């Protein structure tokens, strides 16, 4: 059986290591996890060259994954954070343009990870990253609010989401538009 374990490495960066217990896992799922493990290992190696705010963000992400690694972390029956969601969140942070403000993280009851940009109680953007590349997000800006879904390919942040973050944080006048 394979399992993917998020840890914090010595430099405080996120590292998600694939752990293999036993050598006879031959299911399709094991193959998928094995491939993911390889990608994650590569990603962890790349984390060595990350410094500054993004490294801090990945450290915070790793802490969250650790905090919410067991079922019921919310005092009820929440799912543990999905290791592939953590991997996707890491890829998202790495893919963010350098001039964009980085999000805060929160755990969601279904095992997804929430990336939140909170200016005030009345100005928030919240984006869910789960297994797979679809991003569900919602925003409130005073009396205006809405939701949308975008596709994340693991390499570049969708332009609509970049525009939404810039708009919320006041770095541009581009409006948030629904899908």
């Amino acid at each position, binding site marked *: 059986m394979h399992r993917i374990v998020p840890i914090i490495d010595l430099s405080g960066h996120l590292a998600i290591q694939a752990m293999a217990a036993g050598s006879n896992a031959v299911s399709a799922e094991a193959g998928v996890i094995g491939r993911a493990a390889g990608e994650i290992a590569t990603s962890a190696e790349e984390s060595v060259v990350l410094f500054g705010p993004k490294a801090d963000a990945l450290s915070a992400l790793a802490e969250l994954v650790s905090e919410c690694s067991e079922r019921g972390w919310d005092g009820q029956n929440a799912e543990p954070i999905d290791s592939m969601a953590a991997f996707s969140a890491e890829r998202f942070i790495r893919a963010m343009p350098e001039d964009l403000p980085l999000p805060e993280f929160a*755990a969601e009851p279904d095992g997804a990870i*929430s990336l939140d940009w909170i200016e005030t109680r009345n100005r928030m953007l*919240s984006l869910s990253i789960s297994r797979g590349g679809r991003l569900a997000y919602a925003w409130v800006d005073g009396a205006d*609010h809405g939701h949308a*879904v975008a596709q994340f390919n693991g390499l570049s942040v969708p332009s609509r989401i970049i525009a939404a973050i810039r708009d919320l944080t006041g770095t541009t006048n581009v409006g948030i538009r629904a899908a």
Partner: protein
Amino acid sequence: MLASGLPDIIADPEELARFLFSLSHFNSKSVKPAAFLPSPDHETSVFRHGAEPREELWILATEHAAGMRTVKAAALLNAGQVRIAGLDAVADEPPPRHAVLRGWPLNDNPHLQKAQQKERAILLAQAAVLLER
């Protein structure tokens, strides 16, 4: 009338507390939307109690909500604000004073469903007042 002595129907002005067990669910400024997202059974657990008396609020959290976990904070809002967000607050005892937020959007497309639910959650977060323990 329920065993707790509260009425069956939760009136709009009645205060509700959502107990927060994860530090990731709030910051110094506000409650985060994830704090309100429904559990896998499509409900969000709350208790029918306001900020005061403060000591009773935390006793309620410890005795009936926390289990083995430590309550870090509470998000407070009233039932009317829940209904403005398109959800409902419904009594659900036992335990005493327990209620649930129901009416979360369901959709054949799980991603769209999640986005719709996040929009409701963000409206609750906008309305909520944070009370740290």
